């Protein structure tokens, strides 16, 4: 029974991911006074891409076709870590947060490899920029997770969630507050959103992620887009699970699961609106300011770790 629920959890994440992206775009359009495309447009895009032919540059090696697959697989594996409906997940109790972070890093590494393998100058440029951003974003991500791990005396995301649920709501500790802000800043960098990277641009000056996937087409591009959407969903779910997990089902009753689903959707909705408002309100940072932005996130996460020494 537990296995079934956990499997449903991960399938839910994978299936709902494109819808999430669609909703973000729609809300953003509404905020900007446009009508916006339908929220199911990403599904239509994926359907279209899967039926098209994949074109491969003549200079590319086997890596070019393998990388999107590895990327997708690693992202799905990472999604298995995150508790959504229950305070455990498919891999939640076996793997720890370091494995999670490095699964995401593996995914990113292969994306960068594939981009460079494509042979175009845009690919190389996007790859180098992405390498910079991801290197700098890894430290705050890890440190924030370490801080929460220290405080909750455990290394797996699932037990961290259980620990947070056991505490009172509104019990705001400095560790959690700093880690939350650092995490939020890192999520924006990791998922390639404004103000770090614009997911809808194709200007040479401003592309990071888009530059890397410029050479891909057909099913490969579909896998990459889907992996990106899953990454956004999984990072938001991790944010919710680590910091505001109340509502998650404690036991396996039908009622509990129902409440968990509703709570999850509500929190996601809030995060989506906040993201859309942020993307509409803030201008994208120039490239040389991104390290500064991530440096501030790093300072916050360092403080989070140091504050664990004062935790009561």
């Amino acid at each position, binding site marked *: 029974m537990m296995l079934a629920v956990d499997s449903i959890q991960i399938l839910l994440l994978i299936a709902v991911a494109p819808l999430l992206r669609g909703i973000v775009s729609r809300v953003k359009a509404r905020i900007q006074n446009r009508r916006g495309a339908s929220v199911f447009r990403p599904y239509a895009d994926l359907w279209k891409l899967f039926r098209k032919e994949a074109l491969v540059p003549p200079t590319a090696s086997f890596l070019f076709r393998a990388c999107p697959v590895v990327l997708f697989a690693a992202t799905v594996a990472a999604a298995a870590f995150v508790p959504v409906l229950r305070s455990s997940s498919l891999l939640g109790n076996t793997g720890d947060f370091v494995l999670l972070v490095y699964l995401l890093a593996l995914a990113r590494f292969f994306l960068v490899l594939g981009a460079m393998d494509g042979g175009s100058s845009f690919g190389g440029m996007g790859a180098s920029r992405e390498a910079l951003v991801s290197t700098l974003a890894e430290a705050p991500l890890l440190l924030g997770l370490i801080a929460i791990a220290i405080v909750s005396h455990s290394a797996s995301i699932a037990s961290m969630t259980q620990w947070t649920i056991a505490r009172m709501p*509104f019990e*705001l*500790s*400095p560790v959690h*507050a*700093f880690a939350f*802000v650092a995490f939020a800043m890192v999520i924006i960098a990791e998922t390639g959103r404004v103000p770090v990277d614009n997911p809808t641009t194709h200007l040479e000056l401003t592309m990071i992620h888009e530059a890397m996937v410029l050479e891909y087409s057909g099913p490969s591009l579909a896998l990459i887009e889907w992996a990106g959407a899953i990454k956004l969903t999984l990072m938001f779910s991790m944010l919710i699970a680590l910091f505001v997990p109340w509502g998650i089902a404690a036991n396996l009753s039908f009622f509990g699961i129902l409440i968990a689903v509703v709570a999850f959707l509500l929190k996601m909705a809030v995060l989506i609106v906040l993201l859309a408002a942020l993307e509409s309100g803030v201008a994208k940072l120039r490239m040389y*300011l991104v*390290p*500064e*932005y*991530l*440096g*501030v996130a*790093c*300072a*916050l996460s*360092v*403080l989070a770790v*140091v504050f664990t020494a*004062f935790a009561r």
Partner: protein
Amino acid sequence: MGLIEFAAAKTLASSAVFLFITVLLIAATKRTVACIALFSAQCGIITAQIVAVAFLRHSGEAFAVAIIVLLVKVVAIPYVLLRIANRLKLSPNVTAATTPAQSAFIGAGLILLAFAVVQPYARAFALDSEMLAAATAIVLTGGLLMVSRRMALMQVIGLLVLENGIFLLAMSTTFGMPLVIEMGVFFDLLIWVLLMGVFIFRIRETFAHVDVSRLRRLRG
């Protein structure tokens, strides 16, 4: 009124955390308007604290102080600062001696320093060390702003943040001084901001810039 008292106690307990975040962000921010907004937010958090204290101690004086802080520090002073910033028509960026990331780390260092300094006093007087540390960190950040920023308006904001910290120290240790004194202090602060505005414009008229590191004619 159990719920309100619960909420008040929770507000008091958690506001120190928010204040730490504002301290870091004020140190790291790169835009003048963001700095003014963060100062206003900081004063807003302090107002919430005063209201919580008023509820917990059933003190009407504290309510009056909260309203004055709201009007003067959250609304009036940031409004004056924004008007000055707009009329000066300067670049929206803060020219600092350090980059935002470095400033964020210095801010983090100041917070830790504040904690270290405050421990003996918190133990000796049985006070909440988190709130004392937040107040000290705000004072130190105000000093950092005054020292490392070159534009005259940023020095003004730095001193306002410093006064914020001192006021918070007063509030967290003594739960407020007599109402008349508080009113006089805030009135002085408001007049000071207005005078500084006059002087910033005069500096601009006579020197054609507002970079205080270049005001070095009088020496020795």
